């Protein structure tokens, strides 16, 4: 039988009390007078055979065991508002008491705090959340190159030339250092010998060029969030022009604008067992809703793109169908993302993110689970 038991008054949490009392019973008299610590943790457990789980200490309270029964008042704000059980990660909450009664193995007890599950609406959920959040972008390089400005064309040519010259120069330098030079100029290390380093250089250069390439190809249009976008709340109606300012330097055909919200389950796991192990970080879309979608045949150059999409719409479904942003670290938790996608035929698409801070937190479904702390 365990020497220590923990019991939390979760009714206080559900009713919206500012603090939740936890009663800790110590049945072993040896614990009396010793230092102890109460700890409340948010946990993200990754569903995998070799997971990297994460924990965040939300509340910590050191105390001295002065009686058989001790009480710790935990602020309601330290609790997650709900437990999440997804396909790739779970978010739970755990209370722990540790008594400092040994040098190495202290007595401890852990208990999962039962929190309510979110009941989310599945109405209108996209069948393929990954595709909804990141639709395939078909780009015709030639057509795209022709519609960017003369200045951008020059920028592209300069970038491409620099990349090729850098690649060729690096390669010959590596060959020279490896096979010819008595005193190598750059690639002098015994391990990172020239050709290997040249390969790395080519990869880095190629990646940089690929990123710049897309950036330059997107310059046929300028799209930004408005300077003062409104707070997004339940029951209100919006136009895309509330969030978006976009113009094009060329006539566009088949332009589709979408507003998509999604949840991404985030975590990490290990793969491989050889010399190198791989720590895989994922942010996998688990739910997605397309809240607005409209296609127009033509948008004329220098016109405000958003004015072609002047319909009013509400975003209520996002509050009922999505889990609010619940990251416990940079890599673990559930992310809420909202994006405006501007998709143009065979030209490069653009995505703008509406940050979670724009969404009224108290309109999400979890706020109906627990009472508000007074």
């Amino acid at each position, binding site marked *: 039988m365990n020497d220590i038991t923990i019991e939390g008054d979760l009714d206080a949490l559900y009713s919206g009390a500012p603090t939740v009392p936890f009663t800790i019973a110590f049945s072993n008299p040896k614990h009396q007078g010793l230092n102890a610590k109460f700890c409340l943790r948010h946990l993200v457990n990754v569903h995998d055979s070799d997971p990297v789980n994460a924990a965040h200490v939300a509340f910590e309270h050191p105390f001295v065991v002065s009686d058989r029964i001790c009480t710790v008042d935990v602020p309601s704000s330290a609790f997650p508002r709900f437990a999440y059980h997804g396909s790739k990660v779970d978010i739970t909450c755990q209370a722990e008491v540790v008594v400092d009664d040994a040098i190495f193995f202290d007595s401890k007890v852990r208990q999962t705090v039962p929190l309510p599950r979110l009941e989310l609406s599945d109405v209108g959920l996209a069948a393929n959340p990954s595709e909804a959040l990141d639709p395939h972008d078909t780009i015709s390089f030639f057509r795209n190159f022709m519609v960017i400005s003369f200045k951008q064309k020059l920028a592209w040519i300069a970038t491409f030339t620099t990349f090729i010259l850098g690649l060729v120069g690096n390669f010959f330098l590596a060959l020279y250092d490896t096979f010819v030079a008595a005193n190598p100029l750059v690639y002098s290390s015994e391990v990172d010998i020239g050709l290997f380093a040249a390969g790395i250089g080519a990869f880095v250069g190629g990646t940089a060029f690929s990123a710049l390439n897309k950036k330059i190809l997107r310059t046929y249009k300028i799209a930004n969030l408005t300077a003062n976008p409104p707070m997004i709340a339940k029951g209100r109606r919006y136009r895309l022009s509330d969030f978006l300012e976009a113009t094009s330097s060329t006539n566009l055909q088949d332009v589709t604008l979408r507003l998509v919200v999604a949840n991404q389950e985030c975590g990490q796991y290990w793969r491989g067992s*050889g010399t*190198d192990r791989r720590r*895989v970080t994922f942010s996998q879309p688990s739910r997605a809703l397309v809240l607005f979608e409209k296609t127009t045949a033509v948008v004329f150059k220098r016109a405000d793109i958003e004015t072609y999409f002047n319909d009013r719409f509400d975003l209520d479904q996002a509050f009922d169908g999505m889990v609010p942003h619940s990251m416990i670290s940079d890599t673990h938790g559930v992310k809420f993302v909202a994006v405006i996608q501007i998709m143009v035929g065979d030209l490069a698409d653009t995505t703008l993110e509406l940050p979670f801070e724009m969404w009224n937190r108290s309109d999400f479904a979890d706020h109906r689970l627990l009472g508000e702390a007074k």
Partner: protein
Amino acid sequence: MTRPFDDYLQLANRRLANTRLVVFIGCSGAGKSSYIQHLLAQHPDCRDRPVVRIEQGRPLTWHEKVPDTPCLVVVDELLVMRDVWQIAKLLRAGHRLLVASHLPRPCHWPLLLFGPMLQFQIDRLPAKLFNALAQRGVRSSAGAVDRFIRQFGANYADLDMVLETGPDADLDSALRRFNRFYSVERVRNN
């Protein structure tokens, strides 16, 4: 699930008795050790012979592990250039070697001085990847295989890592999804 071994280098019918050194070159997870295992178990010139394994020990102790009489020595990880010297010493002592190497191909060229050598860069072979994809029932375009090899090298560990991320029946979609929603950090096992 254990998959049948794919002898993509077609070594099964190749004579290795006179080859002093066989080097498999590739990144971690490329299948170097698996190929060596396969040769030791199946190949007529390698199986049923005294084998000494040198795993990730310090190279200075290699000669202590190997007996004086010629035998088949398996070097599981050749990671740094200075260890090539230890390989040379083993070859000079009359041993035959099967080596899994992370070094670039030219690093092994000096070892030709000690006898016939075969070296295979096994993480740059599109055919190997096509075979692996066919075994897994996954379609792929040549472009996707090329992109995959440039990004990861032709290795099973990364292929499985990419394919397991979704139900895609083709490598093109799986690779696109992986690059959008996943990232990888390589951590050296010490």
